[in-house]
């Protein structure tokens, strides 16, 4: 065994633990679920795993209008949430970066939402956005801004807004902290030079700081697109895709089909389509990241 290990090229020996663990924990289960997506697998009838039905589930999924609406909504949520988080994170980082006193405390506060488990965030915003006794409506009514009970979690547009709000609240920190790190790394000289040359603050931000920040922004984008599916916990608790499918996302649809309806074969077929979506987002941001690094001349 050790001799075999020695004979491996060193890079492979070093990567071996990572490869093994990812094979065991991710790839093997995924192969199992790939197989099961070609069966009528129902959890409560284990023997159904051995019946091959070909591409039936995929055809069913592909022709299901509800699935494609959920798909569209998921892409919409990802796009809006990621961009909002990026902009807000950038703003927040710039604000905190300007502060000279007590920055350590501020940075910790800035990361506060990262301490919250997504499932907790779900419960939290479910109560905050409750139309009858929720914090937001109570505040709006007490301040005399409205005398209506706004149905945050029900109204067609507001329900999606509420979910995006919760997701943005939880995850903007990740962007802010990464962009702040980027701001710290900006070399001072070009900025000084720009000031001497009479550039406006906007110009020097646009042409010097921003290109420098881009790799950081793409890193954050890539990280977030990697685990944005964590939003599943939030959505499941807040609306569970309802009402009337107004907030149905791929993940809530998969969770319900797989666990509540017990139709795992079908759920896994949906899962595979959603994995391709995740891969697309990830690869896209990696490309962007590499391009922006190359532009800065950092790629060896």
């Amino acid at each position: 065994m050790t001799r075999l290990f020695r004979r491996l090229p060193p890079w492979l020996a070093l990567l071996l633990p990572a490869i093994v663990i990812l094979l065991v924990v991710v790839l093997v289960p995924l192969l199992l679920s790939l197989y099961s997506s070609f069966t009528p697998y129902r959890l409560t009838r284990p023997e159904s795993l051995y019946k091959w039905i070909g591409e039936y589930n995929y055809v069913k999924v592909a022709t299901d209008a509800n699935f494609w609406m959920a798909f569209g909504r998921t892409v919409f949520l990802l796009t809006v949430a990621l961009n909002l988080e990026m902009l807000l994170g950038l703003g927040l980082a710039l604000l905190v970066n300007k502060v000279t006193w007590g920055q350590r405390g501020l940075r910790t506060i800035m990361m506060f939402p990262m301490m919250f488990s997504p499932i907790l965030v779900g419960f939290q915003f479910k109560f905050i956005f409750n139309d009858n006794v929720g914090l937001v409506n109570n505040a709006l009514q007490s301040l005399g801004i409205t005398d209506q009970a706004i149905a945050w979690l029900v109204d067609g547009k507001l329900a999606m807004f509420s979910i995006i709000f919760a997701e943005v609240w939880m995850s903007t920190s990740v962007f802010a902290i990464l962009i702040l790190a980027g701001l710290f790394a900006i070399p001072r000289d070009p900025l000084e030079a720009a000031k001497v040359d009479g550039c406006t603050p906007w110009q020097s931000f646009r042409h010097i700081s921003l290109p420098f920040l881009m790799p950081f922004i793409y890193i954050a984008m890539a990280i977030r697109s990697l685990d944005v599916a964590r939003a599943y916990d939030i959505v499941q608790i807040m609306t569970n895709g309802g009402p009337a499918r107004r907030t149905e996302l791929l993940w809530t649809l998969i969770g319900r089909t797989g666990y509540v309806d017990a139709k795992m074969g079908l759920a896994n077929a949906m899962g595979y389509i959603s994995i391709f979506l995740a891969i697309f987002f990830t690869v896209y941001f990696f490309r962007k990241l590499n391009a922006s690094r190359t532009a800065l001349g950092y790629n060896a």
Partner: protein
Amino acid sequence: MDINQQHRLKKYGLKAAHLITLFVAMSIICLPGLWIVLNSFRPTVEIMAKPPIWIPEKLSFDHYRAMFGGVGEGGVPVVRYFMNSLIISVTSTIIAILIGIAGGYAFARYRFRGKSAIFVGFMVTRAVPGVALSLPLFIVFAKVGIIDTHFGLILAYVAMNVPFSIWLIDGFFRQVPRELAEAAEIDGCTRWQAFWKVEFPVAKAGIASAAIFAFLTSWNEYALASQLTRSVFSKTMPVGLLDFTSEFTINWGGMCALAVLMIIPALILTFIVQKHLISGLTFGGIKG
């Protein structure tokens, strides 16, 4: 009004605007969280009151007392959950970081075929949604017999955190000039010694930032934990939150109390390491 004065006014105005915006932003970040902390000290009638009660009338430790109380009085095995969470998060973070160091070093220091394909392949494993992975993973774990054990969950979390750790740490090793390590080797160090003396110290900050991300992810993870744990012997705190829900009710005050216990350790840890975190991320970003 002379130009100087105008200039000064503008400067003060900007400064005030900056402080106000900062204050508003920080409020939005803090309020929902502080609301949870506050609720953990209030009776449920007050939280759900209509018309709302803005200034708390009664603050008490009732929810905390109940939580630590006996079975049937609202008691939840908090200490067990806390220990499970701690053991699982810390162990999985350490292992993920060790594997991350090995992997990051390999990516930073060796050239081999299919390098970038392997790299992206690693990252993509992280992109698989937990809800799609949880059942097949459960079946595999059940066959092996590691359901409801610390080991099972640690294994899952290591796999979850390895890709990102490799990525961050890889960036750090790259910024150590190859010549530096080579020089050390020429000076009679083994490759191993060169690594410890030259490369590792530089990468420390990056390792710290990878560690905090890994820790927070494991500490807060729910989807996999709810599937892979069953009894009090392995349930973690996020899963424990659901103990406050039953068929008909949610004990929101109690849930908040447990949430506070979850947040505090994470907050302390973050406060301690955040300096490393920032400098860590700084270099990880540009070199990669």
